[in-house]
């Protein structure tokens, strides 16, 4: 019971914090310069990591699909299927995992250190709003740069898939790419992008919340980092399921039939 109440407590706290962030985003002036600085920092920091993860994810997907496609003799569809699977589902999910490990942990450690060394209180003492000065730029920066990282990761995943398709299944590059435009529709790409945005929103909320509410010195920072990475992973998986489900429902409403 206490576990249940503490979970509710955390969820409610995070949602109230999100409300505060959104309010300061809409009603107060956004520091454009700070936002761009955060975007640059986050993107440049994790571009290599996400690109590498994307490369290997594409390769893994291709190897797995190739094993199954071989049994049907449908190797021509290999490229389309692997690309579609990566774009719709696996790519955003794994890139969000990478981001939660790198950006989420880093941000919450930074904010937590600021909190326990009372720098946030100092900002407030100087008459500035810490929400506006510190939290909002990071929040926006993480969300915007996640789209850049997603793009890089997905492009690399196509390269990885092409290479593996050639080396492992003997599908040459034109063959691999030929069915991609047929199977990967704009709707698939859009659903991947929406998913990535939802993950980034969750990630940014949780990591700023955990960092902002850190207590208890240097150990507290470590605890906040661990709590951030665990709860972001759980929330990302749950949000993944929710966006898939909602996307299905919305598509059904638009098309009028079950795809």
């Amino acid at each position, binding site marked *: 019971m206490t576990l249940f109440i503490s979970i509710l407590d955390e969820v409610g706290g995070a949602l109230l914090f999100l409300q505060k962030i959104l309010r300061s985003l809409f009603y107060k002036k956004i520091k454009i310069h700070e936002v761009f600085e955060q975007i640059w920092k986050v993107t440049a920091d994790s571009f290599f*990591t996400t690109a*590498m*993860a994307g490369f*290997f*994810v594409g*390769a*893994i997907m291709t*190897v*797995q699909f190739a*094993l*199954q496609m071989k049994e*049907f003799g*449908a190797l021509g*569809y290999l490229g*389309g*299927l692997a690309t*579609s*699977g990566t774009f*719709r*589902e696996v790519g955003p*999910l*794994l890139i969000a*995992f*990478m981001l*939660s*490990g*790198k950006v989420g*942990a*880093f941000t919450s*450690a*930074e904010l*937590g*250190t600021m909190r*326990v*060394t009372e720098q946030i209180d100092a900002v407030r003492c100087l008459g500035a709003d810490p929400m506006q000065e510190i939290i909002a730029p990071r929040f926006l920066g993480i969300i915007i740069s996640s789209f850049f990282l997603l793009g890089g990761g997905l492009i690399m995943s196509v390269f990885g898939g092409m290479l593996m398709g050639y080396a*492992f299944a003997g599908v040459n590059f034109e063959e691999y790419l030929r069915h991609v435009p047929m*199977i990967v529709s704009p709707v698939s790409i859009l659903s991947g992008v929406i998913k990535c945005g939802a993950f980034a929103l969750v990630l940014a909320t949780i990591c700023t919340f955990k960092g902002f509410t850190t207590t208890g*010195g*240097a*150990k507290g*920072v*470590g*605890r906040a*980092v*661990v709590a951030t*990475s*665990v709860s972001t*992973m*759980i929330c990302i*998986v*749950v949000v*993944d*399921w929710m966006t*898939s489900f909602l996307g*299905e429902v919305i598509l059904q409403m638009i098309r009028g039939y079950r*795809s």
Partner: protein
Amino acid sequence: MISLIAETMTGVFSPPFRRKEFFQQLYFVANKSLIIILFCVSFAAIVTILESSFHMKLVIQNDSMVPGFAALLILRELGAILTALLLTSRVGAGYASEVGTMQITEQVDAFKMLGIDPVNYLVVPRFLACVLGCMMLTIIANMTCIFSAIIVSQHYLGYTPSMFLTSMDRFVQFQDMVFAAIKGACFGGVIPIVACYFGFRCQQGAEGVGRATTNTVVVASIAIIVIDFILSYTFSYLY
């Protein structure tokens, strides 16, 4: 890092064996993370089966093969790699901050003073516990995945459990289970070694521990994905 791996490997086979420490760590790894992992993995399995049914309908206009394919994908890839990534963020980050705090408060040096090998005392029990714990967690996660996939496919795709199991039986062989367990063991071995490596190299100050934790999660996740690729590639010649 190579030397840390070598020392750990020699430490596994050389006395003193610390059985009590090992069981404590095993309890921490396997039991404390069980609920979270099962929860996440079952959601992931639900998404996987819905997605693969979508793709199958797109390409060959019927999804009668979906249970087999989805089960194969879950068993070969998803169960092991998701379990390992979740364990990285939970156990790996915990180990890195624990060992890092020990390093900056000079407890590791105190071990050396007392004539205890820190690798033997700290790394080896964690290594063994992670290997065994991750292997067991992978098997349990696979079972949960299949179970939740059965439930979802019954409700959304209209397969009865017996149809699901029959279709699964056509595709899945016993090898798949064994390979998944091997994958789990390899991933489990990566986590504590990376965590303890960054923990031992942790620098002074409060930021050092945070940086060690972040580095651990990133490096271990990438290492897990790369190892997964290598293992998938290797196993694909053994089917």
